C-alpha cells in the first residue's frame, strides 16, 4: 500500500507517525522540573525511588555529557585516569594531579569512595609533601574544597559531609602545624587573593575551623537521618557536632585564651553534649535508648518496650563507652567552672612568665595554680584519667622543679600533685624529654 502513495503522501504519513509516537515518549520521558511530581512517568518513578540524577545532588552537565560521549568506555577511561593520577603523584606533578582528580570525578560523580579517597589524598598526602606551611595549608584547603564539591553533588550521602567536617576540624586543628593552620583559616596566607581575610570558599564568615567543622558534621547528621552512613557506629557518627564544639573550646585553651569566650564555649559544649547528643535516640533491637537516661528513664524504657532492665542498661553502657560519653560530660562540666579556667590560666601564665625570666612571679603563679589544680581533681576525679589534664599537671610540676633548680634551692619534700607525680611515673620520661627540649635539661 505504501508503494501506492506519492512521495508527498508518504512524507505526511511519516510526519503523522512521528507526532503520534512523540505523545507516549513525552508522557513517559518528560524531564522533571524543580516542582514535586513534575515530569513524565519515568521522571516521577525516579523521584519516588530517589534514583534521579537531580535527587542525588547538583547536576554537572559536563559530567553527564562525558559519560554519554564515552558510552561503555567509562570504566576504561577512569582506569587510565587513575593510573595517570598515580604516576603524577609519584612524579610530584601536583597541579596536573589536581586536574586529573577533577577528570576522574567528572566520570564518577556519585562514587562516594572516590570522593573520600581523593579528598583525603589532597588534604593529607599531597599537603605533607610540601615544605612551606603556607603550601601545606593550600593543599588542605584543596582537599576540603574538593570534598565540599563532592557533598554538593551527593546530597543524600552523609559520608562526604562528615569527611568535609573532619578535614576542616581535625586536619586543620590537630596537625603538627595546627597553630599556623588555625590562624590561616581566619586570615588566609594568600594575601593577593584573600586580602586580610579567610578563603571565602571554605570559611565565608571567618569563623573558627572547629565551628565550621561543626556545621558540616551537623549537615552529615541531617543527611544521616534520611540515608544510612557506612563508616562507623551510629552513636559515634552522630556525636561529631558536639565533639567539634568540645574541640573548639579545648583549642581556645591551648591557645592561651581563658576568658569568658572559652567558658561560654565550654558551656555550649556541655549543652551540646548532654542536651543534644545525650538526648539523641538510638534504636536497639526492640527498644530505643538515649545516653543521658537516668535510672528512672531506664525503668520507663524497660517498661514501655517490655524488655529486661539489664538489657537496656547494657545497651546504654555500650553506647556511652563507645563515645566516651561520661568523660566528656565531666570534662565539659569541669571546664566551664571558674576555678578550672583559673587553673589553666595560672599554669599558662606561669610558663609565659618563666619564658620572660621572671622566676619569682612564675613560681607564685605555679604555687597557686597547682593548689587549684588539686582542688579541681578533688571535685572531678575522672579528670585524673585524662591524658591532656595529666600532662598539663606534670608539665607544671616540672616547671616548678626547674625554677627551684635555677634558683639553686632545694625543692620541698612535699609539693602539690606529689601523689599524681608518683602515680603517673610511667608518663614522666616522655613528657620530661619534651620539657628538656623546650627549656633545656636539668642540671
Amino acid at each position, binding site marked *: 500500500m505504501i508503494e501506492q502513495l506519492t512521495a508527498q503522501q508518504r512524507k505526511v504519513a511519516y510526519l503523522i507517525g512521528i507526532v503520534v509516537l512523540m505523545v507516549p515518549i513525552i508522557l513517559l520521558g518528560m524531564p522533571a522540573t524543580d516542582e514535586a511530581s513534575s515530569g513524565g512517568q519515568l521522571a516521577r518513578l525516579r523521584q519516588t525511588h530517589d534514583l534521579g540524577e537531580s535527587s542525588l545532588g547538583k547536576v554537572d552537565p559536563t559530567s553527564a555529557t562525558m559519560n554519554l560521549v564515552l558510552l561503555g568506555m567509562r570504566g576504561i577511561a577512569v582506569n587510565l585516569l587513575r593510573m595517570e593520577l598515580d604516576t603524577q603523584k*609519584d*612524579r*610530584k606533578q*601536583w597541579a596536573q594531579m589536581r586536574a586529573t582528580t577533577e577528570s576522574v570525578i567528572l566520570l564518577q560523580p556519585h562514587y562516594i569512595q572516590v570522593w573520600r579517597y581523593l579528598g583525603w589524598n589532597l588534604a593529607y598526602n599531597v599537603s605533607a609533601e*610540601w*615544605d*612551606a*606551611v603556607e*603550601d601545606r595549608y593550600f593543599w588542605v584547603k584543596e582537599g576540603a574544597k574538593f570534598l565540599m564539591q563532592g557533598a554538593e553533588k551527593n546530597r543524600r550521602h552523609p559520608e562526604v559531609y562528615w569527611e568535609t567536617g573532619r578535614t576542616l576540624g581535625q586536619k586543620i586543628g590537630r596537625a*603538627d*602545624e595546627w*597553630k*599556623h593552620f588555625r590562624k590561616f583559616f581566619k586570615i588566609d596566607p594568600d594575601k*593577593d*587573593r584573600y586580602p586580610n581575610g579567610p578563603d571565602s570558599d571554605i570559611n565565608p564568615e571567618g569563623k573558627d575551623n572547629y565551628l565550621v567543622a561543626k556545621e558540616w558534621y551537623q549537615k552529615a547528621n541531617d543527611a544521616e537521618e534520611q540515608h544510612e552512613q557506612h563508616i562507623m557506629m551510629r552513636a559515634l557518627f552522630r556525636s561529631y557536632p558536639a565533639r567539634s564544639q568540645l574541640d573548639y573550646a579545648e583549642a581556645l585553651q591551648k591557645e592561651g585564651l581563658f576568658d569568658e569566650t572559652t567558658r561560654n564555649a565550654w558551656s555550649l559544649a556541655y549543652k551540646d553534649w548532654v542536651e543534644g547528643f545525650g538526648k539523641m535516640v538510638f534504636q536497639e533491637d526492640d527498644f530505643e535508648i538515649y545516653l543521658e537516661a537516668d535510672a528512672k528513664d531506664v525503668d520507663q524504657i524497660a517498661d514501655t518496650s517490655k524488655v529486661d532492665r539489664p538489657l537496656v542498661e547494657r545497651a546504654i553502657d555500650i553506647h556511652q563507652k563507645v563515645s566516651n560519653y561520661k568523660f566528656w560530660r565531666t570534662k565539659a562540666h569541669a571546664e566551664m567552672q571558674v576555678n578550672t579556667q583559673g587553673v589553666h590560666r595560672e599554669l599558662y601564665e606561669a610558663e609565659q612568665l618563666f619564658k620572660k625570666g621572671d622566676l619569682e612571679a612564675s613560681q607564685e603563679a605555679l604555687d597557686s595554680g597547682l593548689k587549684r589544680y588539686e582542688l579541681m581533681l578533688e571535685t572531678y576525679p575522672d579528670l585524673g584519667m585524662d591524658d591532656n589534664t595529666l600532662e598539663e599537671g606534670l608539665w607544671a610540676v616540672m616547671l616548678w622543679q626547674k625554677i627551684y633548680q635555677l634558683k639553686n634551692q632545694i625543692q620541698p619534700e612535699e609539693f602539690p600533685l606529689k601523689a599524681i607525680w608518683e602515680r603517673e611515673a610511667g608518663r614522666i620520661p616522655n613528657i620530661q624529654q619534651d620539657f628538656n627540649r623546650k627549656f633545656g635539661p636539668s642540671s
Partner: protein
Amino acid sequence: MTFDHAPFLFGPALLHWVLVFGCFAGIVFSVSVLIALGVYGASGPTAVMGRVWQGLHDFLGISPRRIWAISLLTIKEAVRRKALFVFVVFASLVMFAGWFLESDLRADLQVKNAVSFALTTISWLTLPVVLLLSCWGLPEDIRLRSIHTIVTKPVRRNEIVMGRILGFSIVASLIVSMMGVVGYVWIRRQVPNNAELICRVPVYGELSFLDREGNLTDKGVNTGDIWEFRSYVEGGTRSSAVYKFPMDKVTDNVRFESRFEAFRTHKGRIGQSLLVRYVLVNPTKGLRVPLGSFEVAEFGLNEKDVDRQISFFDEDKNDNRTVDLFDDVVDQNTLTVEVQCLDAGQYLGMARPDMFIRMPDRSFVVGYFKAVVGVLLLSIFLISIGVTSSTFVKGPVSILLTFTVLLVGQGFREFMLKLITGEQKGGGPIESWYRLITHMNDTLQLPDNFGVKLMQSIDNLFMGGLWLVQHLIPDLSYFVMSPYVANGFDVPWSTAMAKCIAMTVGYLVPCLLVGYYSLTLRELEAK
C-alpha cells in the same frame, strides 16, 4: 615536565640515519632480488636492477616546475575540499575561549593556560585536517581515475609524490601561520595586566654529588621516592650537589634559578622552610665562596643573583674578602656551584634540570613562534606518512595507519618500551589473555610445561614485531613544544628544534622512496 632533553648531535645522528636507511634499503633490495629470482628466474634480478636504475634516473631528473604544478593542483584541491573552513572553527574557539578559562587564578597560571590553549588548539585543529587531506588525496584520484590525466603526461611518479607532499605542506603552513598570528594576538589580549610573557633562556650544567664524608658520587640519597629523578643531599653534613655550568661569556652578574625539593626526617622549625646555601668553588685555586643562605621555595622558584664582584667572609683566613666571579671563581670556562642543605637531619632533593643559569631573556614572540613551527613540522611529518601510505593502501586504511603513527608516537612509546623490555609484567598478548581467563595475576609464576613455552615463543614473535614498530615510529612528543613556552622558557634549538627538523627530513627521504616505488608498481586501474 623537564626542559632538559639530551642535545641533538648532528654527526652521530646522521651516521645513525645512514646506517638505518642503508640497512633498510639493503634489506628491501635483497628481498626484491630474491623474490624476482624466484618468480622470473635469472631475468628477475636484472629487472630489479632496471627498476633501481629507473628510480635513480627519475630522482636525478626531477623537474621543480612539474612538482610546483602538482603542488598548485594539490592546494586547489585542498581549498575545494573546504580545508580552510578550519579557520571558522578556530575563530569560534578563540572568540569564546576567554569565557571558559579561569580568570581568578594566579597571573602566571593564567598565562600558562592561555598559551597552552592557543598552541594546543592550533595543533588539534591542524593535524586532523592535514591527516585527512594527505591520506585521502591520491586514493580519490585513483578511484575517480583523475590521476590518469596526470600520469599520461610526462610527469614522473616521484614528482607526483613530491608535489603532493609540497602542496599539502604549503596548505599546512598557511593554516598554521595564520592561526599562529591570531593566537599570538589573542594571548596578548588574554593575559592579565599584572602578568608577564617571558621567554627564559636556561643554561644547564652537569650534576654530581658529594656524600656526607665529602666523597664524589654519581647520586645522592634516595629518600624513598619511587621516581628516582631527584637525588637528595643530607643537611648539616659535607654532603652537597655539585653543578658545573659552562661559562663562555663574561657578564656583570649571573642569575641562578632552581627548583629544589625538601624532605624532612623530623618536624624541624615549623613555619620555616629548609635553609639552602650555594658555595661557588674553584677547585684549581682551592677557593670556596659561600653565598648567603635562603629558604627553599619547594616546587617553586628560587632566584639568586650573583654580582661579578663578590664579598664574603673567608672562614679559612678568618677575614672578609672580595673576589671576581670570572677571574677568580670560574675555572677553565666552568663555574662550579655546590648546593648544601643547612638543616641537620633534613634532606634537599635535586636533579640536573632543577638548577640553571638564566641568560638574558628572549622576546616571547620568538619562543611562541618556535612552538608554532613545531606544530608545522609535525604536520609535514604526518603529510609525508599520509601521502606515502596512500600510494599503497586505500584512503581509510591510510588514515588509520597515519593516525596510529601519530597516536603511538605521541603517547604509547614509553608503554611499548616497557612491554619490550619486560618491565611491564604480564607477558605478551597470549600470556596476558591466558592470565586473564585463568585469573592469574601478573606476579604469579607460570607452570613450566610445553604449552607455556609455546605460548611464550609466539609472544616473543609478537614482541619482535612490537620492537620493530617501536623503532620505526619516532617519539613525536618532541614536536609538542607548547610546555616550554607555557612555562616561560624558550624553545631550545639543540634539544628541540634541530631534533624535530632532523626527524622530519629523516622520515621524508625514505617516504619519498617508498611512495615513488609504490606508485610506480601500483596498478592505477584498480580501484
